[in-house]
């Protein structure tokens, strides 16, 4: 388009035509004096995922100094990875939901229910293990879609939806399992595949379980999907402003539905991993897993208002919690005070995050 006005059939108001001779510069100036703290704030602002990384490194360093070599051993560090792997994978599922401005109180309930289903089928009903797992994946996806249906069709807020379905899944879990655990030994003989993610690779004193590797893989795959595909952009857009996304031509209902289904599927993956991690299948395990996954997500800097934050943050969030718990334990702190410390950790981590976000791009 040229700078001159195209021939209009009727005349524009005269003063308006003047605007075409306008200067092209923009109201923007670099600010010069900036303190070191402010500079740090800026660096972190442009790379928000650095924050949990720094907190993580800081925590590792501090506990390394306080708790000494016991903490800082390859053995302990890989153990922490193992211990956080299940909550980590749940946090990945949770992140998906939180990015859409939702929250999922049912992730752990879905996971436990799916581990019970896979276990019952494979150990007691003689269904081949891989088929039992496939059924549990389908079940997890279906549970997620049930949440998704309530959110997108019935238009219930996600918090309420999952507050309700949490009770439902939990009751089903108790009913199916008869509140009985499935023994490790029985799994070993009937369906060892269920324990696949409990296998370890030993490198020196480090013990990396397949479950830890799985957790990292889950995060990397989801990161790719969220950041490198159109679907991922749509997820962010829906979380940012669902109405705008709809008007812009995103099928927000479908996108949300796919997010819930995927989150349910990831919970089923976590169910498989949890069998390897725990060794047996316990209907009572991970009762607090829902809130723990949320804790990891918020410590990882993902906004509960949706559309902002990187899923990798949740991985670091889970690791931070693990490092704190391990470090405090090794330093001989009571469980009681561990609970206390995690409370402060949440507050402080998110406060730092908030401080950093205060700067505008």
């Amino acid at each position: 388009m040229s700078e001159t006005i195209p021939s209009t059939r009727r005349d524009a108001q005269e003063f308006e035509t003047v605007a075409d001779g306008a200067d092209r510069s923009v109201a923007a100036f670099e600010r010069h004096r900036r303190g070191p703290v402010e500079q740090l704030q800026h660096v972190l602002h442009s790379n928000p995922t650095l924050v949990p990384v720094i907190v993580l490194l800081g925590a590792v360093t501090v506990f390394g100094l306080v708790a000494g070599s016991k903490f800082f051993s390859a053995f302990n560090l890989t153990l922490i990875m193992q211990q956080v792997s299940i909550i980590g994978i749940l946090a990945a599922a949770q992140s998906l939901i939180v990015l859409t401005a939702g929250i999922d109180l049912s992730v752990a309930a879905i996971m436990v229910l799916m581990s019970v289903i896979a276990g019952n089928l494979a150990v007691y009903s003689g269904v081949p293990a891989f088929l039992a797992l496939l059924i549990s994946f389908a079940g997890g996806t279906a549970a997620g879609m049930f949440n998704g249906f309530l959110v997108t069709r019935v238009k219930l807020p996600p918090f309420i939806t999952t507050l309700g379905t949490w009770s439902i899944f939990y009751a089903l879990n108790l009913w199916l399992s008869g509140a009985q655990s499935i023994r490790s030994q029985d799994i070993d003989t009937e369906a060892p595949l269920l324990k696949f993610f409990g296998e370890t690779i030993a490198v020196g004193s480090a013990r990396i379980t397949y479950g830890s590797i799985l957790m990292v893989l889950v995060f990397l795959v989801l990161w790719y999907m969220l950041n490198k595909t159109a679907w991922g952009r749509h997820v962010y857009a829906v979380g940012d402003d669902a109405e705008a996304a709809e008007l812009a031509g995103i099928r927000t209902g479908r996108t949300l539905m796919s997010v819930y289904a995927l989150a349910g599927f990831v919970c089923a993956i976590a169910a498989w991993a949890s069998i390897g991690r725990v060794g047996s299948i316990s209907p009572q395990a991970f009762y607090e897993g829902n809130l723990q996954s949320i804790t990891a997500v918020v410590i990882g800097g993902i906004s509960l208002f949706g559309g902002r934050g990187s899923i990798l943050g949740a991985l670091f969030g889970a690791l931070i919690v693990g490092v704190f718990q391990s470090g405090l334990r090794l330093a001989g702190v009571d469980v009681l005070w561990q609970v206390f410390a995690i409370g402060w950790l949440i507050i402080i981590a998110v406060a730092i995050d908030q401080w950093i976000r205060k700067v505008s791009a």
Partner: protein
Amino acid sequence: MNAPILSARGLQKHYGRVTALDNCDFDLYPGEILAVIGDNGAGKSSLIKALSGAVRTDGGTITLEGKEVNFSSPLQAQEAGIATVYQTLALSPAMSIVDNMFMGREIRAAGPAGRWLRKLDHAKMREIAREKLSELGLMTIQNIDQPVETLSGGQRQGVAVARAAAFGSKVIILDEPTAALGVKESRKVLNLIQDVRSRGIPIILISHNMPHVFELADRIHVHRLGRRLCTVRPEDCTMSDAVALMTGAKAPPGETIAA
């Protein structure tokens, strides 16, 4: 005169006890700029939301290129070729200008990464966005990866207009595109509208700015109390007449022109 490209008959839209569209008719002819004018609350936005799939009507039919259509979402309308810039703009505040421009029309990378892994071609989208924005000469924006929320109201309007105009459409609807714009930016948008029209694409323009309406419009749809009161041609009538019609100070002169 040939057949309308987009038309509507007997549209109804109720919000609880409020009737926003009351048996409303509408016609847009190929290649024309149709202005829609009317008081605040007359139902103009409701009309274009109905045409663009953003709300479902309670009754009436919409016809695009002679075929009856029934949009249940903005996406369907977009895919049928109706691009809309809403009064609220419909931008995602935390996302970048590029992301917003390509929202829902992302470009996938060539080769297997794109085909199998559905990888996007960010570099290409960035390049095209920059090109479109500078081609439209609309922007005084510093950084194309800047989140939209850091732009001023006017700048945002620019991005939204650019998005609607940048991708081939059969009809473009603009709901008060210059309301928040400065003189310079308004001028750009008006030039742009004419530019788009000269490519043969018909435009529906809602505006309260009479000089703009009379400068650009081929026909003017006067909306009043939830329906089309009449249509007039700017050649045949003065701004004062138009204002008198839309405010109810004057009764419509029978059918002014064949609608």
